[in-house]
């Protein structure tokens, strides 16, 4: 990026480059449109009741208050929901990583009967709308008395084929010579996976882990139908069912709960941004 700040948007003779200035204007407008709802949520959450509906809208309260954040945890079992989300997302992520790494190895590196069929079936599920699975999964969980358990929320999500696809792609890019050298040294296939493939695949493993975690954390339809007690209910379901219902309650509390659910995700994203970008741009899948 060889643009100097002083000269960008200005020609050498000092006249303005309107095309570039317009691009900057559009970019700032875009940043405002996508940033403002977050700021508005946060500002509302620290407004005392008498300022929430002030007209015209104010972007900072006269008397900011954190009252609603303290009240939040009395109004809803937020901490329990957070705990549930954390447990569910962790189970899904660990299970996904373990099974996907193992499955990706033969798919990328071995010739075996049925390989094409297995790949084809796995990949074709990308086009399957998940709604068709809800009824059978629900009836199955009821039948085996697994409704309202962490198992029922977390495990079906690990069947998703996105990680297998991404890891298979990545394993294909690892040089064969490395593998052959290790095999000559008498390394077993499991040893190979552990000593060569996993260390070399850290970036893609991180991408799959973060993606799976966020998808599980934000998953909505399935957790909504399979959990109806606070003992297992996740944050999005709790928010949707109790907090967001028609915004009938006090705005400060509602916005504070939305903010409390959003802020950890935002921090998580800012720390791990590049993995998201890689995950989406290499697979086209958005969770």
């Amino acid at each position, binding site marked *: 990026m060889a643009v100097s700040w002083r000269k960008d948007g200005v020609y050498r003779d000092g006249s303005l480059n309107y095309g570039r200035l317009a691009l900057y204007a559009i970019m700032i407008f875009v940043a405002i449109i996508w940033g403002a709802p977050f700021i508005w949520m946060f500002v509302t959450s620290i407004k005392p009741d008498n300022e929430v509906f002030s007209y015209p809208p104010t972007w900072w309260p006269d008397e900011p208050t954190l009252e609603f954040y303290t009240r939040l945890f009395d109004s809803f079992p937020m901490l329990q929901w957070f705990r549930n989300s954390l447990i569910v997302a962790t189970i899904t992520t660990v299970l996904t990583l373990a099974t996907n790494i193992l499955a990706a190895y033969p798919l990328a590196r071995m010739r075996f009967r049925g390989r094409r069929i297995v*790949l084809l079936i796995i990949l074709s599920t990308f086009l399957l709308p998940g709604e068709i699975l809800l009824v059978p999964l629900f009836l199955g969980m009821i039948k085996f008395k697994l409704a309202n358990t962490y198992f029922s929320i977390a495990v079906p999500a690990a069947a998703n084929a996105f990680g297998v696809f991404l890891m298979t792609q990545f394993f294909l890019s690892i040089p064969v010579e490395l593998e052959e050298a290790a095999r000559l040294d008498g390394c077993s296939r499991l040893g190979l996976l552990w000593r060569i493939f996993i260390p070399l695949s850290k970036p893609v493993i991180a991408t799959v882990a973060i993606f799976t975690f966020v998808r599980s954390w934000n998953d909505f339809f399935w957790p909504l139908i399979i959990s109806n007690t606070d003992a297992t209910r996740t944050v999005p379901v709790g928010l949707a069912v109790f907090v967001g219902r028609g915004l009938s309650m006090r705005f400060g509390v509602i916005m504070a709960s939305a903010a409390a659910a959003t802020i950890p995700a935002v921090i998580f994203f800012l720390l791990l941004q590049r993995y*998201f970008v890689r995950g989406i741009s290499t697979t086209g899948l958005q969770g």
Partner: protein
Amino acid sequence: MSNLAPKGKRAASSWNSIKNDLIAYAFMAPYLVLFIVFLLLPAFVGVYASFTKWGIIGEPKWRGLKNYTKLLNSELFIESLQNTLYFVVLAAIPLIVLGFLLALLVNQKLRGRNIARAIVFLPHVVSVAAVGIIFQWILERSSGLLNYYLGLLGVNPPINWLGDPDSAMPAIAITTIWWTVNGNMIIYLAGLQDIPEDLYEAARIDGAGRWQEVRYVTIPMLMPVNAFVIPLTVIACWRVFGQVFVMTRGGPQGSTFTIAQYIYETAFVKFDMGVASAAGVILMLITLSFTIIQLRAMKVI
């Protein structure tokens, strides 16, 4: 998928080859168990269930095509189809076009473009529940942010976004675009960065201007990207659920009642599993036929 070819070597003897197959399947077994039990099997059971009468308890009873004829004669279901189609038109086209334009924008060598990318991407990690809550407040009729600024631009009287059957679905579409356009932006951005610089240079030598570059280099080079962005965006739009569930519950007057909402109510409120499954199959047929038509039109298959 041509780059998914194996690099291993074909085993020599037949015993070795069987052993090799066993090892391969042993590695895949844990995933395949999850895949079969929680994805493949439920998909088949879902199709089977669509031909039965099935409550929350008890055995399924074969009904043939009755669930389907019932659905196609149900005004509510037809309405949900129409509403969802309307949503697809309202949301999918901007999601694709705007995703592309945003990618073009943040691909320019502008100062602060990384910050702009990050801000547009931020909603990606926010759950639909929080997004729905934030936008209910922004779209609120009398004190909402959007109406206030529209008012400054001369839009009067204020729009009752979520309360008026005419504007509720556009409001859901606006929310959806804000929430998910970033995924398409990132995919197009990666596509843009894969276009070799010399193509632009060649175009410039031939005297192409900025927009001609976009028209004759960028857009044709992004066709392979379109081949998966468009179907995945359209499928996601047909499946719209969370935004509607949180923001309108299908109202007002059923104007935002979508297919997924229909499936939810039929299966998990009325416990009519057979009819709900049939609706799921119809949803699958719609998205599948759209994907096939679209890939045909683009000559991918």
